[in-house]
Protein backbone atom coordinates (compact mmCIF):
# COMPACT_ATOMS: atom_id res chain seq x y z
CA UNK A 1 0.00 0.00 0.00
CA UNK A 2 1.16 3.51 -0.63
CA UNK A 3 1.32 6.41 1.76
CA UNK A 4 2.23 8.87 -0.95
CA UNK A 5 -0.42 11.42 -1.82
CA UNK A 6 1.00 11.75 -5.32
CA UNK A 7 2.60 8.92 -7.27
CA UNK A 8 5.33 11.11 -8.73
CA UNK A 9 6.70 11.92 -5.26
CA UNK A 10 8.38 8.53 -5.54
CA UNK A 11 11.17 10.04 -7.67
CA UNK A 12 12.54 11.58 -4.48
CA UNK A 13 13.63 8.18 -3.19
CA UNK A 14 16.76 7.61 -5.31
CA UNK A 15 17.82 11.21 -4.59
CA UNK A 16 17.68 10.59 -0.86
CA UNK A 17 19.51 7.27 -1.16
CA UNK A 18 22.27 8.85 -3.24
CA UNK A 19 22.50 11.71 -0.74
CA UNK A 20 23.07 9.32 2.14
CA UNK A 21 25.60 7.24 0.19
CA UNK A 22 27.64 10.31 -0.71
CA UNK A 23 27.36 11.53 2.90
CA UNK A 24 29.12 8.32 3.97
CA UNK A 25 31.87 9.00 1.43
CA UNK A 26 32.22 12.55 2.67
CA UNK A 27 32.67 11.46 6.27
CA UNK A 28 35.19 8.75 5.34
CA UNK A 29 37.32 11.34 3.58
CA UNK A 30 36.88 13.61 6.57
CA UNK A 31 38.45 10.90 8.72
CA UNK A 32 41.38 10.66 6.29
CA UNK A 33 41.87 14.43 6.51
CA UNK A 34 41.67 14.37 10.28
CA UNK A 35 44.42 11.77 10.39
CA UNK A 36 46.58 13.73 7.96
CA UNK A 37 46.46 16.62 10.41
CA UNK A 38 48.32 14.48 12.93
CA UNK A 39 50.18 11.98 10.74
CA UNK A 40 51.29 14.38 8.03
CA UNK A 41 52.34 11.80 5.44
CA UNK A 42 49.34 9.49 5.91
CA UNK A 43 48.37 8.13 2.45
CA UNK A 44 50.88 10.45 0.75
CA UNK A 45 51.40 10.52 -2.21
CA UNK A 46 48.42 8.30 -3.08
CA UNK A 47 45.84 10.72 -1.66
CA UNK A 48 47.43 14.08 -0.82
CA UNK A 49 45.56 16.31 1.63
CA UNK A 50 44.31 18.66 -1.06
CA UNK A 51 42.73 15.80 -3.00
CA UNK A 52 41.04 14.33 0.05
CA UNK A 53 39.77 17.78 1.00
CA UNK A 54 38.37 18.37 -2.46
CA UNK A 55 36.52 15.07 -2.27
CA UNK A 56 35.31 15.86 1.25
CA UNK A 57 33.90 19.30 0.41
CA UNK A 58 32.63 18.49 -3.08
CA UNK A 59 30.81 15.40 -1.85
CA UNK A 60 29.19 17.54 0.82
CA UNK A 61 27.93 20.04 -1.73
CA UNK A 62 26.74 17.35 -4.12
CA UNK A 63 24.92 15.30 -1.51
CA UNK A 64 23.22 18.36 -0.08
CA UNK A 65 22.10 19.24 -3.62
CA UNK A 66 20.77 15.70 -4.00
CA UNK A 67 18.94 16.23 -0.73
CA UNK A 68 17.49 19.58 -1.84
CA UNK A 69 16.35 18.12 -5.15
CA UNK A 70 14.83 15.10 -3.45
CA UNK A 71 13.09 17.42 -1.00
CA UNK A 72 11.71 19.49 -3.87
CA UNK A 73 10.42 16.43 -5.72
CA UNK A 74 8.81 15.19 -2.55
CA UNK A 75 7.18 18.34 -1.26
CA UNK A 76 6.24 20.23 -4.41
CA UNK A 77 3.56 17.75 -5.57
CA UNK A 78 1.95 17.85 -2.11
CA UNK A 79 2.15 21.62 -1.91
CA UNK A 80 0.87 22.23 -5.44
CA UNK A 81 -1.65 19.38 -5.18
CA UNK A 82 -0.66 18.04 -8.55
CA UNK A 83 1.63 15.40 -10.00
CA UNK A 84 5.16 16.37 -10.93
CA UNK A 85 5.45 17.79 -14.45
CA UNK A 86 7.82 15.05 -15.62
CA UNK A 87 8.88 12.18 -13.37
CA UNK A 88 10.88 10.79 -16.30
CA UNK A 89 12.99 13.95 -16.51
CA UNK A 90 13.60 13.72 -12.77
CA UNK A 91 14.84 10.14 -13.21
CA UNK A 92 17.10 11.04 -16.12
CA UNK A 93 18.56 14.02 -14.25
CA UNK A 94 19.23 11.81 -11.26
CA UNK A 95 21.49 9.55 -13.29
CA UNK A 96 23.15 12.41 -15.14
CA UNK A 97 23.98 14.15 -11.88
CA UNK A 98 25.10 10.99 -10.13
CA UNK A 99 27.36 9.86 -12.98
CA UNK A 100 28.81 13.35 -13.44
CA UNK A 101 29.49 13.56 -9.72
CA UNK A 102 31.05 10.10 -9.58
CA UNK A 103 33.26 10.76 -12.62
CA UNK A 104 34.44 14.02 -11.07
CA UNK A 105 35.45 12.31 -7.83
CA UNK A 106 37.18 9.53 -9.78
CA UNK A 107 38.99 12.24 -11.73
CA UNK A 108 40.18 13.90 -8.52
CA UNK A 109 41.48 10.61 -7.17
CA UNK A 110 42.86 9.02 -10.33
CA UNK A 111 44.99 11.70 -11.94
CA UNK A 112 46.96 14.72 -10.74
CA UNK A 113 44.79 17.81 -10.65
CA UNK A 114 46.85 19.58 -13.31
CA UNK A 115 46.35 16.62 -15.66
CA UNK A 116 42.64 16.65 -14.95
CA UNK A 117 42.57 20.34 -15.81
CA UNK A 118 44.35 19.64 -19.10
CA UNK A 119 42.11 16.70 -19.98
CA UNK A 120 38.90 18.59 -19.35
CA UNK A 121 39.65 21.77 -21.27
CA UNK A 122 40.38 24.14 -18.40
CA UNK A 123 42.41 26.27 -20.82
CA UNK A 124 39.21 27.02 -22.77
CA UNK A 125 37.75 28.72 -19.72
CA UNK A 126 39.85 28.74 -16.57
CA UNK A 127 37.48 28.02 -13.72
CA UNK A 128 39.24 25.29 -11.74
CA UNK A 129 41.38 25.38 -8.64
CA UNK A 130 39.33 27.72 -6.51
CA UNK A 131 38.07 26.46 -3.18
CA UNK A 132 34.78 24.52 -3.52
CA UNK A 133 34.67 25.32 -7.24
CA UNK A 134 37.36 22.77 -8.15
CA UNK A 135 35.09 20.88 -10.55
CA UNK A 136 36.32 20.51 -14.14
CA UNK A 137 34.56 22.60 -16.77
CA UNK A 138 32.35 19.74 -18.09
CA UNK A 139 31.12 19.08 -14.54
CA UNK A 140 30.34 22.75 -14.02
CA UNK A 141 28.44 22.86 -17.29
CA UNK A 142 26.66 19.66 -16.29
CA UNK A 143 25.60 21.26 -13.02
CA UNK A 144 24.10 24.17 -14.96
CA UNK A 145 22.22 21.83 -17.34
CA UNK A 146 20.90 19.69 -14.48
CA UNK A 147 19.91 22.79 -12.50
CA UNK A 148 18.05 24.32 -15.43
CA UNK A 149 16.19 21.13 -16.31
CA UNK A 150 15.39 20.59 -12.65
CA UNK A 151 14.05 24.14 -12.31
CA UNK A 152 11.99 23.65 -15.45
CA UNK A 153 10.45 20.51 -13.97
CA UNK A 154 9.70 22.09 -10.60
CA UNK A 155 8.63 25.40 -12.16
CA UNK A 156 6.14 23.74 -14.53
CA UNK A 157 4.69 21.76 -11.64
CA UNK A 158 4.20 24.85 -9.52
CA UNK A 159 2.79 26.73 -12.51
CA UNK A 160 -0.01 24.25 -13.07
CA UNK A 161 -0.83 23.71 -9.39
CA UNK A 162 -1.61 25.53 -6.19
CA UNK A 163 0.93 28.20 -5.34
CA UNK A 164 1.74 28.09 -1.67
CA UNK A 165 4.28 30.25 0.11
CA UNK A 166 6.31 27.14 0.92
CA UNK A 167 6.68 26.13 -2.71
CA UNK A 168 7.33 29.70 -3.85
CA UNK A 169 10.04 30.21 -1.22
CA UNK A 170 11.60 26.90 -2.22
CA UNK A 171 11.51 27.92 -5.87
CA UNK A 172 13.08 31.30 -5.16
CA UNK A 173 15.84 29.57 -3.24
CA UNK A 174 16.48 27.08 -6.03
CA UNK A 175 16.46 29.76 -8.75
CA UNK A 176 18.88 31.82 -6.69
CA UNK A 177 21.10 28.78 -6.26
CA UNK A 178 21.25 28.21 -10.01
CA UNK A 179 21.74 31.86 -10.96
CA UNK A 180 24.48 32.51 -8.41
CA UNK A 181 26.35 29.40 -9.54
CA UNK A 182 26.96 31.17 -12.85
CA UNK A 183 29.58 33.28 -11.06
CA UNK A 184 31.63 30.08 -10.90
CA UNK A 185 32.45 30.77 -14.55
CA UNK A 186 33.84 34.23 -13.84
CA UNK A 187 37.50 34.03 -12.96
CA UNK A 188 39.47 37.17 -13.80
CA UNK A 189 43.26 37.17 -13.50
CA UNK A 190 42.93 40.01 -10.99
CA UNK A 191 42.89 37.98 -7.75
CA UNK A 192 40.93 40.60 -5.81
CA UNK A 193 38.07 40.60 -8.31
CA UNK A 194 38.25 36.81 -8.48
CA UNK A 195 37.85 36.53 -4.72
CA UNK A 196 35.20 39.24 -4.56
CA UNK A 197 32.84 37.44 -6.95
CA UNK A 198 33.80 33.95 -5.80
CA UNK A 199 31.92 34.80 -2.64
CA UNK A 200 28.80 35.46 -4.68
CA UNK A 201 28.62 31.74 -5.15
CA UNK A 202 29.87 30.62 -1.77
CA UNK A 203 28.46 33.15 0.69
CA UNK A 204 25.28 34.01 -1.17
CA UNK A 205 24.56 30.29 -1.35
CA UNK A 206 25.03 29.27 2.24
CA UNK A 207 24.15 32.53 3.97
CA UNK A 208 21.58 33.54 1.37
CA UNK A 209 19.48 31.44 -0.94
CA UNK A 210 20.14 28.11 0.78
CA UNK A 211 18.43 29.57 3.84
CA UNK A 212 15.30 29.96 1.73
CA UNK A 213 15.48 26.31 0.72
CA UNK A 214 16.10 25.33 4.32
CA UNK A 215 13.19 27.42 5.61
CA UNK A 216 10.85 25.92 3.02
CA UNK A 217 11.84 22.34 3.85
CA UNK A 218 11.60 22.96 7.58
CA UNK A 219 8.25 24.73 7.15
CA UNK A 220 6.87 21.83 5.13
CA UNK A 221 7.93 19.17 7.62
CA UNK A 222 6.64 21.17 10.61
CA UNK A 223 3.35 21.79 8.82
CA UNK A 224 2.90 18.06 8.30
CA UNK A 225 4.15 16.95 11.70
CA UNK A 226 2.39 19.50 13.89
CA UNK A 227 -0.79 20.21 11.96
CA UNK A 228 -0.44 23.90 12.87
CA UNK A 229 -2.33 26.32 10.65
CA UNK A 230 -0.62 26.95 7.31
CA UNK A 231 -1.14 30.72 7.63
CA UNK A 232 0.88 30.79 10.84
CA UNK A 233 3.70 28.69 9.43
CA UNK A 234 3.98 30.65 6.22
CA UNK A 235 3.97 33.96 8.05
CA UNK A 236 6.89 32.71 10.12
CA UNK A 237 8.70 31.62 6.97
CA UNK A 238 8.46 35.07 5.45
CA UNK A 239 9.82 36.63 8.64
CA UNK A 240 12.71 34.15 8.68
CA UNK A 241 13.71 34.64 5.07
CA UNK A 242 13.36 38.41 5.36
CA UNK A 243 15.83 38.36 8.22
CA UNK A 244 18.06 35.98 6.25
CA UNK A 245 18.37 38.13 3.15
CA UNK A 246 18.30 41.53 4.84
CA UNK A 247 21.27 40.52 6.99
CA UNK A 248 22.93 38.01 4.68
CA UNK A 249 23.28 39.99 1.45
CA UNK A 250 25.28 42.89 2.86
CA UNK A 251 26.70 40.40 5.37
CA UNK A 252 28.78 39.09 2.45
CA UNK A 253 31.01 41.97 3.45
CA UNK A 254 32.48 39.98 6.35
CA UNK A 255 34.51 38.16 3.69
CA UNK A 256 35.78 41.40 2.19
CA UNK A 257 37.83 42.64 5.15
CA UNK A 258 41.29 41.43 4.10
CA UNK A 259 41.17 40.46 0.44
CA UNK A 260 41.88 43.83 -1.12
CA UNK A 261 38.39 45.34 -1.04
CA UNK A 262 37.95 48.82 0.48
CA UNK A 263 38.13 49.17 4.26
CA UNK A 264 34.51 50.28 4.61
CA UNK A 265 33.49 46.65 4.26
CA UNK A 266 34.68 46.19 7.84
CA UNK A 267 31.69 48.31 8.87
CA UNK A 268 29.13 47.08 6.38
CA UNK A 269 30.15 43.47 6.76
CA UNK A 270 30.57 43.68 10.52
CA UNK A 271 27.23 45.28 11.31
CA UNK A 272 25.10 43.22 8.95
CA UNK A 273 26.79 39.90 9.58
CA UNK A 274 26.54 40.51 13.32
CA UNK A 275 22.78 40.37 12.68
CA UNK A 276 23.02 37.12 10.71
CA UNK A 277 22.25 34.99 13.81
CA UNK A 278 18.74 36.55 13.83
CA UNK A 279 17.19 34.42 11.06
CA UNK A 280 18.63 31.31 12.68
CA UNK A 281 17.33 32.35 16.07
CA UNK A 282 13.93 32.93 14.49
CA UNK A 283 14.15 29.41 13.08
CA UNK A 284 14.83 27.98 16.54
CA UNK A 285 11.88 29.83 18.05
CA UNK A 286 9.74 28.83 15.07
CA UNK A 287 10.55 25.12 15.43
CA UNK A 288 9.83 24.98 19.14
CA UNK A 289 6.76 27.19 18.86
CA UNK A 290 5.20 25.02 16.19
CA UNK A 291 5.96 21.78 17.99
CA UNK A 292 4.55 23.20 21.24
CA UNK A 293 1.37 24.29 19.49
CA UNK A 294 0.99 21.00 17.64
CA UNK A 295 -2.52 19.79 17.04
CA UNK A 296 -1.59 16.16 16.69
CA UNK A 297 0.95 13.73 18.00
CA UNK A 298 2.76 12.64 14.88
CA UNK A 299 4.02 9.07 15.19
CA UNK A 300 7.32 9.93 13.48
CA UNK A 301 9.19 11.02 16.59
CA UNK A 302 12.56 10.83 14.85
CA UNK A 303 11.56 13.41 12.26
CA UNK A 304 10.32 15.75 14.99
CA UNK A 305 13.65 15.38 16.77
CA UNK A 306 15.58 16.18 13.58
CA UNK A 307 13.43 19.26 12.96
CA UNK A 308 13.96 20.61 16.47
CA UNK A 309 17.63 19.70 16.28
CA UNK A 310 18.00 21.65 13.04
CA UNK A 311 16.51 24.70 14.70
CA UNK A 312 18.94 24.53 17.61
CA UNK A 313 22.09 23.46 15.81
CA UNK A 314 21.73 25.88 12.90
CA UNK A 315 21.53 28.72 15.40
CA UNK A 316 24.52 27.38 17.31
CA UNK A 317 26.71 26.56 14.30
CA UNK A 318 25.79 29.25 11.82
CA UNK A 319 24.58 31.88 14.27
CA UNK A 320 26.71 31.72 17.39
CA UNK A 321 29.89 30.27 15.90
CA UNK A 322 29.62 32.69 13.01
CA UNK A 323 29.15 35.65 15.31
CA UNK A 324 32.20 34.61 17.35
CA UNK A 325 34.61 35.74 14.65
CA UNK A 326 32.58 37.97 12.35
CA UNK A 327 33.54 41.38 13.73
CA UNK A 328 36.56 42.82 11.95
CA UNK A 329 38.76 43.48 15.01
CA UNK A 330 38.37 39.83 16.05
CA UNK A 331 38.46 38.43 12.54
CA UNK A 332 41.79 40.21 12.02
CA UNK A 333 43.30 37.55 14.30
CA UNK A 334 41.07 34.55 13.55
CA UNK A 335 40.75 34.83 9.76
CA UNK A 336 41.80 31.57 8.14
CA UNK A 337 42.51 29.69 11.37
CA UNK A 338 40.94 26.59 12.83
CA UNK A 339 38.19 28.88 14.19
CA UNK A 340 36.96 29.15 10.63
CA UNK A 341 37.09 25.37 10.30
CA UNK A 342 35.12 24.96 13.52
CA UNK A 343 32.41 27.32 12.30
CA UNK A 344 32.31 25.66 8.89
CA UNK A 345 31.77 22.21 10.35
CA UNK A 346 29.13 23.15 12.91
CA UNK A 347 27.24 25.45 10.56
CA UNK A 348 27.07 23.04 7.63
CA UNK A 349 26.07 20.19 9.89
CA UNK A 350 23.59 22.16 11.97
CA UNK A 351 21.86 23.90 9.11
CA UNK A 352 22.10 21.95 5.89
CA UNK A 353 23.02 18.39 6.84
CA UNK A 354 20.36 18.34 9.51
CA UNK A 355 17.61 19.87 7.41
CA UNK A 356 18.21 17.28 4.69
CA UNK A 357 18.20 14.50 7.28
CA UNK A 358 14.96 16.01 8.61
CA UNK A 359 13.14 15.72 5.31
CA UNK A 360 14.63 12.27 4.71
CA UNK A 361 13.46 11.18 8.15
CA UNK A 362 9.97 12.46 7.43
CA UNK A 363 9.62 11.34 3.82
CA UNK A 364 11.62 8.15 3.56
CA UNK A 365 9.22 5.90 5.51
CA UNK A 366 6.40 6.92 3.17
CA UNK A 367 8.61 6.50 0.13
CA UNK A 368 9.24 2.99 1.40
CA UNK A 369 5.52 2.26 1.72
CA UNK A 370 4.85 2.77 5.43
CA UNK A 371 3.57 5.71 7.41
CA UNK A 372 6.39 5.67 9.91
CA UNK A 373 9.32 3.47 10.75
CA UNK A 374 8.97 0.76 13.36
CA UNK A 375 9.66 1.83 16.93
CA UNK A 376 13.09 0.22 17.11
CA UNK A 377 14.22 1.86 13.88
CA UNK A 378 13.14 5.22 15.23
CA UNK A 379 14.97 4.67 18.50
CA UNK A 380 18.14 3.81 16.57
CA UNK A 381 17.70 6.83 14.35
CA UNK A 382 17.37 9.03 17.42
CA UNK A 383 20.53 7.46 18.84
CA UNK A 384 22.31 8.34 15.61
CA UNK A 385 20.95 11.89 15.94
CA UNK A 386 22.54 12.28 19.35
CA UNK A 387 25.80 10.55 18.43
CA UNK A 388 26.33 12.64 15.31
CA UNK A 389 25.15 15.91 16.83
CA UNK A 390 27.08 15.67 20.08
CA UNK A 391 30.25 14.51 18.34
CA UNK A 392 29.97 17.38 15.86
CA UNK A 393 29.69 19.80 18.76
CA UNK A 394 32.89 18.31 20.15
CA UNK A 395 34.61 18.53 16.76
CA UNK A 396 33.74 22.22 16.74
CA UNK A 397 34.88 22.72 20.35
CA UNK A 398 38.25 21.05 19.76
CA UNK A 399 38.81 23.01 16.57
CA UNK A 400 37.84 26.21 18.35
CA UNK A 401 40.36 25.48 21.10
CA UNK A 402 42.99 24.76 18.46
CA UNK A 403 42.05 27.95 16.64
CA UNK A 404 42.33 30.15 19.73
CA UNK A 405 45.74 28.71 20.49
CA UNK A 406 46.79 29.07 16.86
CA UNK A 407 45.77 32.74 16.70
CA UNK A 408 47.51 33.38 20.00
CA UNK A 409 50.84 31.75 19.12
CA UNK A 410 51.00 32.82 15.51
CA UNK A 411 49.41 36.25 15.55
CA UNK A 412 49.10 37.80 19.01
CA UNK A 413 52.12 37.09 21.24
CA UNK A 414 55.17 39.38 20.96
CA UNK A 415 57.33 36.79 19.19
CA UNK A 416 54.89 35.19 16.79
CA UNK A 417 55.79 31.65 15.76
CA UNK A 418 55.82 30.10 12.30
CA UNK A 419 52.79 28.23 11.00
CA UNK A 420 54.20 24.72 11.21
CA UNK A 421 55.74 25.11 14.65
CA UNK A 422 52.35 26.30 15.88
CA UNK A 423 50.65 23.33 14.22
CA UNK A 424 52.97 20.97 16.08
CA UNK A 425 51.67 22.37 19.35
CA UNK A 426 48.04 21.75 18.42
CA UNK A 427 48.38 18.00 17.94
CA UNK A 428 46.48 17.12 21.10
CA UNK A 429 43.42 19.02 19.90
CA UNK A 430 43.66 17.48 16.44
CA UNK A 431 43.72 14.00 17.96
CA UNK A 432 40.66 14.77 20.07
CA UNK A 433 38.92 16.15 17.01
CA UNK A 434 39.73 12.93 15.16
CA UNK A 435 38.30 10.78 17.95
CA UNK A 436 35.14 12.90 17.89
CA UNK A 437 35.11 12.27 14.14
CA UNK A 438 35.25 8.53 14.71
CA UNK A 439 32.27 8.82 17.07
CA UNK A 440 30.48 10.78 14.35
CA UNK A 441 31.16 7.93 11.95
CA UNK A 442 29.76 5.44 14.46
CA UNK A 443 26.65 7.62 14.65
CA UNK A 444 26.43 7.55 10.89
CA UNK A 445 26.71 3.75 10.91
CA UNK A 446 23.85 3.56 13.42
CA UNK A 447 21.90 5.90 11.15
CA UNK A 448 22.42 3.59 8.17
CA UNK A 449 21.52 0.55 10.22
CA UNK A 450 18.28 2.19 11.39
CA UNK A 451 16.94 1.94 7.83
CA UNK A 452 17.03 -1.83 8.06
CA UNK A 453 16.05 -2.28 11.69
CA UNK A 454 12.79 -4.07 12.36
CA UNK A 455 10.92 -4.47 15.61
CA UNK A 456 11.84 -7.67 17.36
CA UNK A 457 8.95 -10.11 16.94
CA UNK A 458 8.39 -10.43 20.69
CA UNK A 459 8.08 -6.68 21.13
CA UNK A 460 5.70 -6.03 18.27
CA UNK A 461 2.45 -6.36 20.14
CA UNK A 462 1.37 -5.51 23.64
CA UNK A 463 3.36 -7.49 26.18
CA UNK A 464 2.42 -11.02 25.36
CA UNK A 465 4.06 -13.77 27.36
CA UNK A 466 7.15 -15.13 25.75
CA UNK A 467 6.90 -18.80 24.86
CA UNK A 468 8.95 -20.90 27.17
CA UNK A 469 12.13 -22.17 25.65
CA UNK A 470 12.16 -25.88 25.75
Amino acid at each position, binding site marked *: MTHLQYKSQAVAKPYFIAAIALFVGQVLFGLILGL*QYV*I*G*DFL*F*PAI*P*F*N*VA*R*MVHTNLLIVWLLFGFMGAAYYLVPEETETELHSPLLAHVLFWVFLIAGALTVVGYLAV*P*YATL*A*EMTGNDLL*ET*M*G*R*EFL*EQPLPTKLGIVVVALAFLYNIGMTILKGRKT*AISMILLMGLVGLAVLFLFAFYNP*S*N*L*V*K*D*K*YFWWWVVHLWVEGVWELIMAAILGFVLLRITGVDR*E*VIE*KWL*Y*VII*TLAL*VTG*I*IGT*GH*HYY*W*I*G*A*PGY*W*QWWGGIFSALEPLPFFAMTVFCFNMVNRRRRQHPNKAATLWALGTGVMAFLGAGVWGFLHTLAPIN*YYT*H*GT*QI*TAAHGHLAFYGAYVMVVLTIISYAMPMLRGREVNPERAQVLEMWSFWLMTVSMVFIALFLTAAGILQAWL*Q*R*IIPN*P*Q*AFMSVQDQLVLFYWMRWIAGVVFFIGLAVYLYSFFAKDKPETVQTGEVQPAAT
Partner: protein
Amino acid sequence: MSATFTKAMARNIFYGGTVFFILLFLALTFHTTRQIPQRVPNETPSPEVARGKVLWETRNCIGCHTLLGEGAYFAPELGNVYKRRGGEFIKIWIKAQPTKVPGRRQMPQFHFTDEQLDDLVAFLKWTSEINTENWPPNIQG
Protein backbone atom coordinates in the same frame (compact mmCIF):
# COMPACT_ATOMS: atom_id res chain seq x y z
CA MET B 1 3.03 36.45 16.32
CA SER B 2 0.07 38.77 16.60
CA ALA B 3 -2.95 38.42 14.38
CA THR B 4 -2.74 42.00 13.13
CA PHE B 5 0.58 41.15 11.49
CA THR B 6 -0.63 39.15 8.52
CA LYS B 7 1.10 36.83 6.09
CA ALA B 8 0.60 39.35 3.29
CA MET B 9 2.39 42.01 5.31
CA ALA B 10 5.26 39.63 6.04
CA ARG B 11 5.50 38.76 2.35
CA ASN B 12 5.57 42.40 1.28
CA ILE B 13 8.29 43.23 3.78
CA PHE B 14 10.26 40.29 2.42
CA TYR B 15 10.07 41.44 -1.19
CA GLY B 16 10.65 45.09 -0.37
CA GLY B 17 13.54 44.39 1.98
CA THR B 18 15.21 41.95 -0.34
CA VAL B 19 15.04 44.22 -3.37
CA PHE B 20 16.34 47.15 -1.32
CA PHE B 21 19.33 45.26 0.01
CA ILE B 22 20.16 43.69 -3.36
CA LEU B 23 20.28 47.18 -4.86
CA LEU B 24 22.40 48.46 -1.97
CA PHE B 25 24.77 45.52 -2.41
CA LEU B 26 25.05 46.17 -6.14
CA ALA B 27 25.81 49.83 -5.47
CA LEU B 28 28.55 48.93 -2.99
CA THR B 29 29.90 46.38 -5.44
CA PHE B 30 30.00 48.98 -8.18
CA HIS B 31 31.94 51.31 -5.93
CA THR B 32 34.28 48.52 -4.83
CA THR B 33 35.14 47.49 -8.39
CA ARG B 34 35.98 51.15 -9.05
CA GLN B 35 38.30 51.18 -6.03
CA ILE B 36 40.10 47.89 -6.68
CA PRO B 37 42.53 49.35 -9.27
CA GLN B 38 44.00 51.61 -6.58
CA ARG B 39 44.38 48.72 -4.17
CA VAL B 40 46.38 46.32 -6.33
CA PRO B 41 49.89 46.70 -7.80
CA ASN B 42 48.56 47.02 -11.33
CA GLU B 43 44.99 46.63 -12.40
CA THR B 44 45.58 44.26 -15.28
CA PRO B 45 48.15 41.81 -13.99
CA SER B 46 51.07 41.15 -16.31
CA PRO B 47 51.06 37.96 -18.42
CA GLU B 48 53.52 36.36 -15.96
CA VAL B 49 51.20 37.07 -13.04
CA ALA B 50 48.20 35.78 -14.97
CA ARG B 51 50.06 32.59 -15.92
CA GLY B 52 51.21 32.21 -12.34
CA LYS B 53 47.63 32.41 -11.14
CA VAL B 54 46.65 29.62 -13.53
CA LEU B 55 49.51 27.49 -12.19
CA TRP B 56 48.35 28.28 -8.66
CA GLU B 57 44.86 27.12 -9.60
CA THR B 58 45.65 24.05 -11.67
CA ARG B 59 47.90 22.65 -8.92
CA ASN B 60 45.09 23.17 -6.42
CA CYS B 61 47.38 25.01 -4.01
CA ILE B 62 44.28 26.31 -2.21
CA GLY B 63 43.53 22.70 -1.20
CA CYS B 64 46.23 22.92 1.50
CA HIS B 65 47.27 26.57 1.78
CA THR B 66 45.42 29.79 2.49
CA LEU B 67 45.78 32.82 0.23
CA LEU B 68 44.78 36.03 2.01
CA GLY B 69 43.30 33.78 4.66
CA GLU B 70 41.05 31.80 2.34
CA GLY B 71 41.55 28.17 1.49
CA ALA B 72 42.54 25.14 3.54
CA TYR B 73 44.28 25.46 6.89
CA PHE B 74 46.73 22.60 6.44
CA ALA B 75 49.73 24.57 5.20
CA PRO B 76 51.07 28.11 5.63
CA GLU B 77 49.46 31.33 4.42
CA LEU B 78 50.96 32.31 1.06
CA GLY B 79 49.48 35.77 0.52
CA ASN B 80 52.58 37.26 2.13
CA VAL B 81 55.03 34.42 1.47
CA TYR B 82 56.96 36.58 -0.98
CA LYS B 83 57.64 39.06 1.79
CA ARG B 84 58.33 36.32 4.33
CA ARG B 85 60.71 34.21 2.25
CA GLY B 86 61.58 35.98 -0.98
CA GLY B 87 61.37 34.69 -4.54
CA GLU B 88 64.50 32.53 -4.57
CA PHE B 89 63.57 30.63 -1.44
CA ILE B 90 60.10 29.93 -2.84
CA LYS B 91 61.58 28.36 -5.97
CA ILE B 92 64.09 26.25 -4.09
CA TRP B 93 61.44 25.12 -1.67
CA ILE B 94 59.00 24.06 -4.39
CA LYS B 95 61.76 22.17 -6.22
CA ALA B 96 62.78 20.33 -3.06
CA GLN B 97 59.33 18.85 -2.38
CA PRO B 98 58.32 16.45 -1.02
CA THR B 99 60.61 16.45 2.00
CA LYS B 100 59.69 12.84 2.79
CA VAL B 101 60.37 13.44 6.47
CA PRO B 102 58.41 10.63 8.16
CA GLY B 103 55.21 11.80 9.80
CA ARG B 104 55.50 15.36 8.46
CA ARG B 105 52.95 17.02 6.20
CA GLN B 106 54.03 16.55 2.61
CA MET B 107 53.76 18.78 -0.45
CA PRO B 108 53.73 17.10 -3.87
CA GLN B 109 56.43 17.57 -6.51
CA PHE B 110 54.97 19.53 -9.44
CA HIS B 111 57.89 19.32 -11.92
CA PHE B 112 57.71 23.02 -12.81
CA THR B 113 60.01 24.48 -15.45
CA ASP B 114 62.13 27.50 -14.49
CA GLU B 115 59.80 29.74 -16.43
CA GLN B 116 56.79 28.37 -14.58
CA LEU B 117 58.51 28.98 -11.25
CA ASP B 118 59.14 32.58 -12.31
CA ASP B 119 55.46 32.97 -13.17
CA LEU B 120 54.37 31.52 -9.86
CA VAL B 121 56.70 33.85 -7.95
CA ALA B 122 55.41 36.80 -10.00
CA PHE B 123 51.87 35.88 -8.97
CA LEU B 124 52.83 35.57 -5.31
CA LYS B 125 54.71 38.88 -5.45
CA TRP B 126 51.70 40.61 -7.03
CA THR B 127 49.46 39.11 -4.36
CA SER B 128 51.76 40.23 -1.55
CA GLU B 129 51.38 43.84 -2.75
CA ILE B 130 47.59 43.95 -2.52
CA ASN B 131 46.26 46.46 0.01
CA THR B 132 44.80 44.04 2.56
CA GLU B 133 44.14 46.56 5.33
CA ASN B 134 47.36 45.35 7.05
CA TRP B 135 46.33 41.74 7.23
CA PRO B 136 47.91 39.39 8.29
CA PRO B 137 48.86 40.81 11.69
CA ASN B 138 52.51 39.81 11.25
CA ILE B 139 54.88 38.18 8.78
CA GLN B 140 54.05 34.64 9.96
CA GLY B 141 50.70 34.89 8.19
